[in-house]
């Protein structure tokens, strides 16, 4: 171990490789464009690493199967696109409520509804955070290259296992059809974390009793003699249904707060020429690549443009964004929907004008198209 290898991979393949490096042992999925080739890649490869890949009857079965598999001790994952993600909604809340480590790869395509299955989109900025009913914590990471698809999938497993939360890796149609060079780092070059095991014997162990420091309860797997109850109803530390104010409040707060407390593990962003940027672009995923070209060309012409790219979308690097916007006269959010990320940016950057450049296009916008769409502010 300790070596790395090179791959020429699209984001689906890179994410699959990242999952294998992270120790993936169970994958369930349902065919959907543009996530099927990740599924197919793993179907061929994962059994060689002692893992199981199964096709379920629908996405609802897939998400519940990976939740069950996670409690049986496996690192577990599924992959889908918008329509499948919507079907998984209820059970993503189940995973959050029961603090089950799972990873969901979500390859965005053009919605709503069936939309355009073979075109890109970014319509799930808000849905990825609020996909299920009720209030809970969730982590969403957004790669913008095959390399990041690899790295962030490993990070997604580390966060899921260590914080006992569902983690979404939000990719898009363009990324999963772009092959590029990926350095496949292996441990110890890359950190792979495992879930915390109980330190108390069965009988004393409580599956939802958090460590006071990180608010994350150690996790006993099925079959280890702990008689753990995975409870979808509001529950106390034993997992017993408890419809009383203080138990409910403590639970919901902790589901959210444990991500806040462990923000350092999660929050990540990238900046490009932001130190002196007078015009700050904000974009993520494949669109950020086009925006990067816009910034690059503008810089050659002496224009002080910069790019802030959230890598963790939920929660976002708020401090990083505020810092990047310090010298900006205006902030321009470029996204392939009709205005979602912009709401978050407006909330974080309060003292600057924030403009929306919504690009409802089916192909990745070119830098020229972005400049054209943003012309009135440039």
């Amino acid at each position: 171990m300790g070596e790395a290898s090179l791959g020429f991979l699209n984001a689906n393949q890179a994410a699959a490789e990242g999952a294998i490096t992270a120790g993936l042992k169970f994958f369930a999925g349902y065919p959907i464009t543009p996530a099927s080739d990740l599924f197919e890649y793993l179907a061929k490869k994962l059994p060689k690493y002692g893992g199981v890949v199964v096709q379920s009857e629908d996405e609802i079965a897939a998400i519940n199967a990976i939740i069950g598999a996670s409690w049986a001790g496996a690192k577990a994952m599924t992959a889908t696109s918008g329509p499948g993600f919507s079907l998984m909604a209820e059970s993503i809340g189940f995973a959050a409520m029961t603090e089950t480590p799972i990873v969901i790869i979500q390859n965005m395509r053009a919605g709503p509804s069936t939309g355009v299955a073979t075109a890109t989109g970014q319509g799930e900025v808000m849905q990825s955070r609020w996909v299920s009913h009720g209030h809970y914590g969730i982590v969403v990471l957004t790669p913008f290259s095959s390399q990041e698809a690899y790295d962030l999938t490993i990070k997604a497993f580390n966060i899921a296992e260590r914080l006992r939360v569902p983690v979404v890796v939000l990719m898009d149609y363009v990324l999963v059809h772009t092959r590029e060079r990926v350095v496949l780092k292996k441990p110890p070059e890359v950190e792979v974390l495992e879930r915390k095991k109980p330190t108390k014997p069965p009988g004393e162990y409580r599956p939802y009793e958090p460590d006071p420091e990180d608010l994350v309860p150690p996790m006993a797997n099925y079959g280890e003699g702990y008689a753990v109850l995975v409870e979808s109803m509001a529950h106390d530390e034993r997992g017993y249904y408890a419809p009383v104010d203080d138990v409910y409040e403590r639970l919901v707060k902790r589901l959210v707060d444990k991500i806040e407390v462990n923000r350092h593990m999660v929050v990540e962003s990238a900046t490009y020429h932001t130190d002196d940027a007078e015009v700050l672009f904000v974009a993520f995923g494949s669109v950020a690549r086009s925006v990067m070209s816009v910034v690059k060309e503008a810089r050659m012409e002496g224009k002080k443009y910069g790019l802030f790219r959230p890598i963790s979308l939920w929660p976002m690097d708020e401090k990083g964004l505020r810092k990047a916007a310090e010298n900006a006269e205006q902030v321009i959010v470029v996204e392939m929907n009709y205005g979602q990320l912009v709401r978050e940016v407006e909330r974080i950057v309060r003292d600057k004008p924030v403009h929306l450049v919504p690009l409802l296009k089916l192909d990745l916008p070119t830098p020229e198209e972005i400049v054209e769409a943003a012309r009135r502010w440039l």
Partner: protein
Amino acid sequence: MAVIRNIHPLDRFLRPERLPHMWCPGCGIGIALSAFLRAVNELEEEGRIDSRKIVFVTGIGCTARASGYVRFDAAHTPHGRAIPYAMGVKLANPDLIPVVFSGDGDIVGIGGNHFIHAARRNMDMLVIMVNNMIYALTGGQVAPTTPEKIYTTTTPWGNPERPFNAVTLAWIAGANYVARWSVTHPELLKNSIKKALLMEGFRFIEVLSICPEVYGRHIGFRSPVELYTHLRKVVKIRGKIRPLETEYDWERGITLGEFVVRDEPGFVRRLMEVVKGGKA
């Protein structure tokens, strides 16, 4: 604080601090659960099962609350999703023994698609469906198992739907073991569970139950004993008949018995075989 004592012989499989349970007086779910726990108890005493390997999975509904009362590894999953959850458990750790214990609405209503596909795959799990013929937890709406013409709160003029005969459904979808029993015959049920627990593949046991509070009131019975006594007249035990010959009719009768016993390889074994065959 009150001290809770283990008293009943099955208390070691229960969480006595949570008893009495939430089920209404005379509800048959407790009888079905008792039969299951006795089956596990006997198998463990006979050295044929390790109860720590059981994963007790339920969905949503009255029956599904059972997961909170048993001292096994357990899950109370979203409505209808117990079967795919159990599938994930089994495939991630084939040493575990998933048991789905849930209601008719959960298993053949909202979870119907998972049910037929798990049976088709011969997925290794035991599914015990407690059938009270009604959506009871939500107050008495029509279920896919409600007999025709019966009053429910969503069919106030009588049920126009035809019910599922879950036995034929499980059989035609490919289950290794299919039986139907009733809470009025708990020892036969227990014996069937003991047998099914030790088999591989998809095993399905339907348990006709009594819901005196909702179903019983709908059809005019005033007490649990009246409904229990009536159900005993409705059910007819038949030996050596095929699934297609079973009846599911509140007037003509509901057939009890063991209808399918097959020894086809379960999904886990099939999967291992193809993966090995492909030299993975």
